[in-house]
């Protein structure tokens, strides 16, 4: 395999089995903006479905006007509040805060009727949708609801739920909401629900965080900080994906030979790619040293949208037979 004339490089190298990751109930995919979180989320959903699992792929917000990046990666026009089958074994949905609020009120209020009446009250609805952090709590409750959902035969409706989280800063802010909220409201039904949600998010048998990053100095530094922050919130770190790793065509000793040939000459085309390969090598070495979680490397693939996710997923799945 090589870098062709058109700059395409296609191949994914899997350094670590994904089996344990796909065995969880919820996988939370996070990372800095623009690193390929959504591609990894969609690819994981496809890979899990290929092993026969019933997968639900979700995101937190959807803006109808802007379109959903997850929908684009899954190759569908848009996502709705209710899970819809988009491919065999794969459903997709937006984690709707208002469905979470509604379910919550139905669960805590003595009568279903009262819960419905409460949601019909414009003031309560507005309070829940506009009060900061309440939409996020609704999302958490909705996630728990989907996790618990069972079929008639007693098996889970969605065996694996993948959550494509927003970019790092926002995701970390989300992670601190439950604890902060417990300080404001230590008792009551909301507090109980928050505690239950936290217990689920912190159970390594059920939940795993996935960090996606790029093989460059700063993104790797930020990914390492992110793993520390995830640790602080006691959410189990399940996997790290390094995306867009440039293909390295050079054998042992060849880089040194080339350095000697180029020494003292003016800057040459191709040298920036060489630098990029070197930086990727250093970044991967540092990540391997400093993060104690399974690591997978995804090579630079010049594809986009659903084709990219399919390509990455097909290579995840091939690993099963390797």
């Amino acid at each position, binding site marked *: 395999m*090589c*870098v*062709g*004339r*058109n*700059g395409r490089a296609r191949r994914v190298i899997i350094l670590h089995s994904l089996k344990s990751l796909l065995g969880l109930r919820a996988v939370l995919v996070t990372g*800095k*903006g*623009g*690193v390929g979180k959504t591609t990894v989320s969609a690819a994981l959903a496809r890979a899990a479905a290929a092993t026969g699992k019933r997968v639900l792929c979700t995101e937190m*917000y959807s*803006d109808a006007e802007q*379109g959903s990046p997850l929908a684009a990666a899954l190759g569908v026009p848009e996502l709705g509040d209710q899970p819809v089958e988009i491919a065999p074994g794969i459903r997709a949905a937006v984690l709707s805060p208002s469905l979470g609020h509604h379910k919550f*009120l139905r669960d*805590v209020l*003595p009568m279903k009727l*009262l819960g419905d009446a*409460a949601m019909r*009250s414009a*003031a*309560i609805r*507005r309070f829940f949708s*506009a009060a*900061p*952090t309440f939409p*996020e709590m609704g999302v958490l409750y909705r996630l728990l609801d989907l996790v618990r959902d069972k079929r008639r035969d007693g098996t889970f409706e969605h065996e694996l739920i993948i959550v494509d989280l*927003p*970019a790092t*800063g*926002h995701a970390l*802010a989300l992670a*601190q*909401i439950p604890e*902060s*909220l417990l*300080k*404001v*409201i230590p*008792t*009551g*039904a*909301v*507090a109980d629900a928050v505690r239950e949600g936290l217990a689920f998010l912190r159970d390594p048998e059920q939940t795993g965080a996935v960090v996606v990053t790029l093989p*460059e*100095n*700063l993104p790797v*530094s*930020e990914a390492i900080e992110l793993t520390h922050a995830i640790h602080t919130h006691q959410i189990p770190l399940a996997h790290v994906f390094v995306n867009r790793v440039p293909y390295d*065509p*050079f054998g042992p000793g*060849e*880089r040194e030979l*080339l350095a000697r040939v180029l020494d003292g*000459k*003016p800057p*040459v*085309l*191709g040298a*920036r790619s*060489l630098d990029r390969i070197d930086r990727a090598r250093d970044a991967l070495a540092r990540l391997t040293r400093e993060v104690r979680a399974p690591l997978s490397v995804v090579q630079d693939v010049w594809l986009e949208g659903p084709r990219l996710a399919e390509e990455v997923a097909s290579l995840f799945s091939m690993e099963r037979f390797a």
Partner: protein
Amino acid sequence: MSSRPPDTSPKLVEDASFLADLVRDKRVIVCCGAGGVGKTTTAAAIGLAAAAQGRRTLVLTIDPARRLAEAMGLSESARVPTPVPRERLTPVGVPESGELHAWMLAPEVVFESMVRRLTTDEERVQEILDNRLYQHLSKVVAGMQEYTAAEALYGLSTDGRYDLVVLDTPPSRNALEFLEAPRKLSLFLDERVVGVFMPRGGAFWRTASELIDSVFTRAFGEGFYGELQSFLRAFSGMFGGMRAHADAVRQLLTSADASFVLVTSPEPVALAEAEYFHGRIAHMGLPFGGYVLNRSWAYTRGFASPEDIDLGPGAPIEEVGALLKLRQLADAERWRARRDRDLLAKLRMEGGTGAALATPHLGGAVEDLAGLAELARNLVRFDGA
């Protein structure tokens, strides 16, 4: 011997880019774009370019990379903007009259200064600051970054301390939300909603209030409803002021004193986002400055071709092999350069302002003030060297 003529790719932009005018004339420059395109770095470089023109400049940022924060002397806990020390500005060409300040927006700090500005009574200020609900809302960042950005922009662009404020928008999927944020928050704090939670007479209101009380007590436990009422009561005097700020920010941002710059990389996802933003900016009637194409490979001037390297007769086969591989990499770079130059031409046409410019593909990331200065020079005067 030379196998191909030197690179004669067209000059990318005129000597002075659209940004040269912006950094000289505008009072507010807002940088928008997808995450991971170098938005924060670009905002910092624009700030430095303005300081180099002798202007007193402030860069407002949300979530800078640590090295960039260090380069600019940013501290996470700073309660006021921090100036970059004079002795560090002189070596990068900032004249005596120019200043560069930076501030990482901390929601609780911005909130507190807003409370102080809108509430004259110190007792009232303390009542608000001590409220547990207030403390929760002001510290938890989710959803608050947008509001904070708008509020800080209002305070800082009106106090006359700075000639130019450069705003790095939050890394949210809809970064222009910060324009809507004050309106959204005032929806929540609307008198009509708040009124429902306040004690009031009449049988209808008593029934409604009992329902709400029972819902809240069941959901949040005893005592929360009272806390909420006192929070809303304390805040209710501030609504008018908050709405006035929101209107003032909107007025400033739609005026000729402001300019919106879209930062993008050649990645399809980033481009799609930039296109979306461009539509939104036009739709909202905001002044569009132009595109900054970042992380592009368009810049190939001054690079020699590896095909021109002559190893001479009898060169070891390993060297020949390694050089062949370098040529493949060079080919890939040429392909990317062509792609990015086409893209640049397209962005210029779409922008309608004829304003798009490329920054060279810098090795890695900008990690110090000198690197930032180099980027700033490229941004305002792409001399094609």
